[in-house]
């Protein structure tokens, strides 16, 4: 039963990711006084891409063609670790948050390799930038997560979320710091404005898009889907760790249904925040990203310090 729910939950993750992307786009369009495409446009795009024949450069190696499958699979595996609608599932019990970060790093490693493999200047440039940013983003992310795990005394997300639920509504300064740190990292890691611009056509300014410029057809569909999934994963992390109320603790149809509705609501609100921030700020200069991620790391560190100073003494 619990395995079935775990599998269903992962499928739900994969199925809902494009909807979140569509909703985000919808919000941005409204804020920019534009007519928005349908919420289901990302699904149509994915279907369109899968129907197209992928064009692969003559000198691309096997790595280039298998990378999309690896990236997609690794991201789906990362999704199994994160509780979406229910806690205490066997998949989240068997792996902790470090494993999730590991899956992300694994996917990114292959994405960067694929960018280099094709041999174009843009691919290499994108890979180099992605690696620069991730080397700064990962420590900041781990620092934020360690703050959380110190409170719950576990690196397991499911257990940590249960812990937060059991504690009830307590204002922890460490959580506020960690929340902001994680949100900053999430923006950098998912390639959103102001770190990267996912909708730009200017090759020279791209980070994530530069690596996937040569992809087409189903390969591109898989990579796009994986990025949408990653965006949703970060959204769920922020929503469920810091605002876990509503998540199902028992496996009844009622609690699971409620869990689904609540997480959809939470993600929708988070997406509105993201859309507003993307409308308000321009993309920052490439060399400002280190200051930005340095700030995220600092917030994570402050979170941990405030945990040690304010919360453990009791």
């Amino acid at each position, binding site marked *: 039963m619990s395995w079935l729910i775990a599998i269903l939950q992962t499928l739900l993750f994969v199925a809902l990711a494009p909807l979140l992307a569509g909703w985000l786009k919808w919000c941005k369009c409204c804020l920019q006084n534009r007519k928005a495409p349908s919420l289901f446009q990302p699904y149509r795009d994915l279907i369109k891409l899968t129907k197209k024949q992928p064009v692969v450069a003559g000198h691309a190696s096997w790595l280039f063609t298998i990378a999309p499958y690896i990236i997609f699979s690794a991201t789906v595996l990362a999704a199994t670790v994160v509780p979406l609608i229910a806690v205490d599932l066997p998949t989240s019990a068997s792996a902790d948050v470090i494993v999730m970060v590991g899956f992300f790093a694994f996917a990114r490693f292959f994405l960067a390799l694929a960018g280099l493999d094709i041999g174009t200047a843009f691919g290499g440039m994108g890979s180099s930038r992605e690696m620069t940013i991730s080397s700064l983003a990962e420590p900041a992310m781990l620092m934020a997560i360690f703050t959380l795990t110190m409170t719950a005394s576990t690196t397991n997300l499911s257990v940590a979320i249960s812990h937060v639920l059991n504690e009830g509504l307590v204002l922890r300064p460490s959580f506020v710091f960690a929340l902001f740190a994680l949100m900053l990292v999430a923006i950098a890691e998912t390639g959103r404005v*102001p770190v990267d611009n996912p909708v730009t056509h200017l090759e*020279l*300014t791209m980070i994530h898009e530069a690596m996937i410029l040569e992809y087409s057809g189903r390969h591109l569909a898989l990579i796009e889907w994986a990025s949408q999934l990653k965006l949703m994963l970060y959204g769920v992390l922020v929503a469920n760790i810091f605002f876990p109320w509503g998540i199902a603790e028992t496996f009844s149809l009622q609690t699971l249904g409620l869990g689904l509705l609540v997480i959809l609501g939470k993600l929708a609100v988070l997406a509105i925040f993201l859309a507003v921030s993307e409308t308000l700020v321009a*993309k920052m200069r*490439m060399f400002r990203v280190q200051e930005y991620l340095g700030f995220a790391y600092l917030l994570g560190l402050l979170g941990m310090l405030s945990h040690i100073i304010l919360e453990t003494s009791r």
Partner: protein
Amino acid sequence: MSSSNWTVDFLNQLISAAVTVEQISLPSTTLWQTESNHWQQFAELALQQNMRWVAGWAEHVQDRFFINACFEKQGVYVLLRAIVNAAKPELPSQAIVYPAANRSERHTQDMFGINFIGHPDNRRWTRHKAWPKHSHPLRKDFSVQGTPDEITQPDMDYPFVKAHGTGAYEIPVGPVHAGIIEPGHFRFQAVGELILNLEERLGYVHKGIEKIAEGRSPESLARLAGRVSGDTTVGHAWAACKAMEQAAGIDIPPRAALIRGVLAERERVANHMGDMGAICNDVAFVFAQMQFTRLRELWLRTNATVFGHRLLMDRIIPGGVNCDLSEESCAKIKQDIIQLRKELSEIMSAVDLNSSLEDRLFTAGYLAPELAAAFGTLGYVGRASGQSFDVRKNAPYAPYDQVAFKVPVETQGDIASRFWVRNKEINAALKLIEKFIALLSPGDIISPWKTPVAGSESLGIVEGWRGEIVSYIRFDADNKIARFYPRDPSILNWPVLEKLVLDNIVPDFPVCNKSLNGSYSGSDL
């Protein structure tokens, strides 16, 4: 004219330097004819006089080449000409003295096979692989159709500047870009993200404008001039018509001049709004781009209803204009301006208050005023770097000679400055349109055409939205065009892009390029 003093001084200087010039009066300017061996020396003396190099072109006449260069100082234009024999076409280069002449001389070298001795960089420029190695399209023995291959060969072996050393790498960009822009190739040498060198390679939209202009009627040439660069259709058509009218000795009716002024200023406003939006879009500030795009679209729709064409193509014809302004149209234009001012001020205050945008635009893509002066940079690019030259102000022509207006100049030299100069130019242009409409009095909008004498020539110089446009026209017998050379401001502005991106980082190049927004079509001809 008060500024004619310098020409007297300059002529005395030339005489003492043993450079002989023969002065011939043309309808719009003075033609100074010199010996080809004094070509470079003239430029050196001109530079000492702080004259600005304006344009350079050549012409094949029977068995000789007329080589022309145009200079300007204090609003007075001088057309310099040397005649060389087609058997051994060579003369000393002016590009050593004036870097602005560099690409122009390479263009002349490719199109005519004229050798500029001592040219600092005599690689081919306009020549790609579309015509055979030893043929020169603008010579008279080259047919208009040419002898093109079935498929034009790729231009693989252009000798780009190379960078060596560890960590230096090359980024080739274009000629096909992801956005809807014209084709052009950019070759970067970078270390990490820092740009060490940028080299432009243009010429991908060479349309043979100069060749197909030969033998046209004035009406047909005006249409062609309107297509030199699609976004400057009013500017180029006006410059060409002005040159033809001067050559034919025609004065256009005052009403036509005022309507031309309205058209040119409307073109300026539309393009500046588009550019300002595009600059914002390049730093992912999409909100502003959407607003500017919306305002530009409304502006263009008014163009369509009032003048019958969104981009105002073919509204200017030899002798005048072919669209009149009714009372209702004037009212509509005035109403539009009030509305636009209101909306622009709201958007500009939002843009001004946005610190993330400010962070991207300030200090980026800095062009020093000295460099701008050395390259003869024009329009908003020059005006953001202290170059105040504006044909409308410095060499006024109808209708600009009847009104007072401001030319904004800044010395900040960065992208922000080029952005704000555009904004100021929009405000000045809106005021100009209002003044022109107020000055309109009933009358003709076209003067009857007179067939000019064979060989009559003239320079049409107007201020387009990118800057000074120079159009050279020489008539043949029977009202036919013998030579047409349009000098788009982009020809002088493109080279400074290579300079202003230095010490910037690779991801800032697109916004640097957009702040300059040179025309590819206008420079490739």
